[in-house]
């Protein structure tokens, strides 16, 4: 049987831990999310493993709930950006000509505006709710996915096997989902690992700037914002979310690399 390489195993365990913690947050968090349980910035103790935050809430609890929000939003936005981006990109490659030109130039137009500024402008006029955050982040990011998907699909579209399918009389659906998609999967998966992390950073940035997840709900960017003043006094509370993001980033990409290696094999190695 297939042995899981050490690096991938580490990645799998850590990623699973993060996602489990996110799913089971209400069960494993020692206190309530917004419950004030101690003094301001208490150091770590048996009661509060990571200490307390700027208004006396348990920091571990906040991190667990924050992870739940952050990971949920990032996952949903990644799924949205990949479905829209990949389908539109494949379609542009298969249709070619005018349709491709119109779509690609429209995407170029969107990409010419810095993403963060674009998101800030949109979110300052729209109500900042979780579905709105996911929609804005997902659609803005799908421009990147579109370009990758289109570039990959253009190459695949000229292969003889796609021509053979066209000569057989196959419709666009079969060509996109059965001929192109399976062959474009490897670069897309590699990109997905990275895009997910960008999403985590993106939602954290928005929250830090006050236009993301709204208090009292916790998220990693928000925790940094709330505790940033503590750094002056040597309180490490604001650095813990950074550590969480870093470990999550590495472990997710270890898993993505491993999946990538397996999908690259053309000899039926796909699980």
């Amino acid at each position, binding site marked *: 049987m297939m042995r899981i390489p050490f690096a991938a195993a580490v990645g799998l365990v850590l990623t699973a831990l993060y996602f489990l913690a996110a799913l089971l947050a209400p069960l494993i968090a020692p206190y309530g999310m917004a419950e004030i349980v101690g003094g301001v910035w208490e150091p770590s103790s048996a009661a509060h493993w990571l200490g307390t935050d700027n208004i006396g809430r348990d920091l571990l609890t906040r991190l667990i709930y924050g992870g739940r929000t952050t990971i949920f939003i990032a996952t949903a936005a990644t799924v949205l950006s990949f479905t829209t981006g990949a389908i539109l990109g494949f379609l542009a490659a298969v249709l070619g000509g005018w349709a491709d030109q119109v779509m690609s130039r429209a995407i170029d137009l969107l990409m010419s505006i810095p993403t963060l500024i674009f998101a800030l402008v949109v979110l300052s006029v729209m109500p900042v709710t979780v579905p709105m955050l996911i929609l804005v982040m997902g659609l803005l990011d799908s421009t990147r996915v579109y370009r990758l998907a289109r570039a990959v699909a253009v190459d695949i579209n000229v292969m*003889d096997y796609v021509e053979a399918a066209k000569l057989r009389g196959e419709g666009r659906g079969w060509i996109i989902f059965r001929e192109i998609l399976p062959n474009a999967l490897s670069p897309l998966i590699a990109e997905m690992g990275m895009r997910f992390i960008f999403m985590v950073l993106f939602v954290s940035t928005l929250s830090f700037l006050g236009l993301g997840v709204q208090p009292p709900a916790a998220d990693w960017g928000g925790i940094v914002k709330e505790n940033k003043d503590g750094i002056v006094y040597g309180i490490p509370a604001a650095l813990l979310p950074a550590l969480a993001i870093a470990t999550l980033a590495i472990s997710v990409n270890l898993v993505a690399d491993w999946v990538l290696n397996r999908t690259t094999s053309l*000899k039926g190695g796909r699980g």
Partner: protein
Amino acid sequence: MTDALLDVRNLKIGATAYPPGEPPQEIEIVHGVSFTLEKGRVLGLIGESGAGKSTIGLAALGYGRGGVKITGGEVWINGRDILKGGIRRLRDLRGAEVTYVAQSAAAAFNPAKKLMEQVTEAAIHHKKFSKAEAEARAVALFGKLGLPDPETFGQRYPHQVSGGQLQRAMTALALCPEPDLVIFDEPTTALDVTTQIDVLAAIKEAIHDTGVAALYITHDLAVVAQVADDIMVLRHGNKVEYGTTDQIINAPQEQYTRELVSVRSIQHEEKLPSPDPVLKVDRVTARYAGTGFDVLKDISVALHPGQTLAVVGESGSGKSTLARAITGLLPPTDGSITFDGRTLSPTLAGRSREDLRELQMIYQMADVAMNPRQTVGTIIGRPLEFYFGLKGREKRARIQELLDQIELGEGFIDRYPAELSGGQKQRVCIARALAAKPKMIICDEVTSALDPLVADGILKLLLALQKREGVAYLFITHDLATVRAIADSIAVMYRGKVVRYGSKTEVLSPPFDDYTDLLLSSVPEMKLGWLEEVIAHRKMESAGN
């Protein structure tokens, strides 16, 4: 120590294999091969792909390509073992004592530098000649190799000369530093037959005049018979037979060598045309969008049911474009295509599913003609499902039946294309075309990427299937031996026009037009001295004019 220039003793070469899902394995790809080469002699290394011939050739430079390692044995050149002494000694050797001519000159030349700079580089670098001397030598070599304007030829960039000229420039590059040994790695394989003969004659003359020794690697026995003094036949990294060219061609000892020599001896009785052709191409003219140049000019040919029409010509003659016009991928600007009595829509979108089903296509490169992510079962099963609505057990039974027809048997249905050999891949493509129960199949150079013996098997299979299923073939090829083996009628194409068209006997019997004569006389024959005969004949003719 012998006085041989090159003495290879018990050479073993290994590589690392990466089977999916298992740890990497060390495998041996050349199992103890020995041979010697004396000054001024030419040794031909011949075998099918994977025989290890290029690997052995590169080992004479002390080089292993892409993770290939020399694991044992000795390679003596000029009385010293080049495998001992490290990279510095190898650097002195390469490009000075031993030089290399690659298969694809177009890929081997740096497109950003002028030819002269590249041809003289090794000679100057190794301080064999000064810049002026090296350039004088290069000009002399250009002249000897029959390149136009030898004085100024070196001032051109690689893209400014033709493929045949570039291959000759590469030979000049290899001969410029006055090496003792030149390794020719399939130098004419990528060229058209009409170009190949010139390059071959130029190489042979250059070898003869400079007195250099050469290793000539090729898969084409007829080609190597023209240039080599001795031939070594290789298979799966083992020496099969080693002897003089005369002995190998005229009195082969081993079964495998005999097969190689007698390849393409398929006999095919020409069939008479019937009154109703299955395909009628009438005065078709076509051009690619955005160009003002007709790639097909006024083409009229017909194909009769159960017969084979061979379309021959060199690259760029428009034969594959003709296939694209017939399939509807390139709508003709003028003329009509009649299929089975009905006029076909010029565009793919305008054709009915029945039109598409009855006209199938097989490609040159089976590798890219099959989706690498689909199993053989899916690849062959899709047309069954698509055209006939077959499902489940019924479909699987029919797939197995088709697999039996292409002689692949059990156990292939769940394999991926990457798990098949080149010949097996092409067979699966044939099965995919057959699955649609077509009236006609377009075969676009289906055997040119295959080894001779494998290609032979594919041709025999196609003929057997034609007999049983009554399917007609439009067979596009540049290989006249294939044409002789399978065609009922022939169309010779040159620069977008059909220059000669008729039944096989008509086309292949004199009087010939100039182009057909050139094409026919350029096909290497499996006999000694053929090259000299043709060249002498051509010289006589041009002198007579």
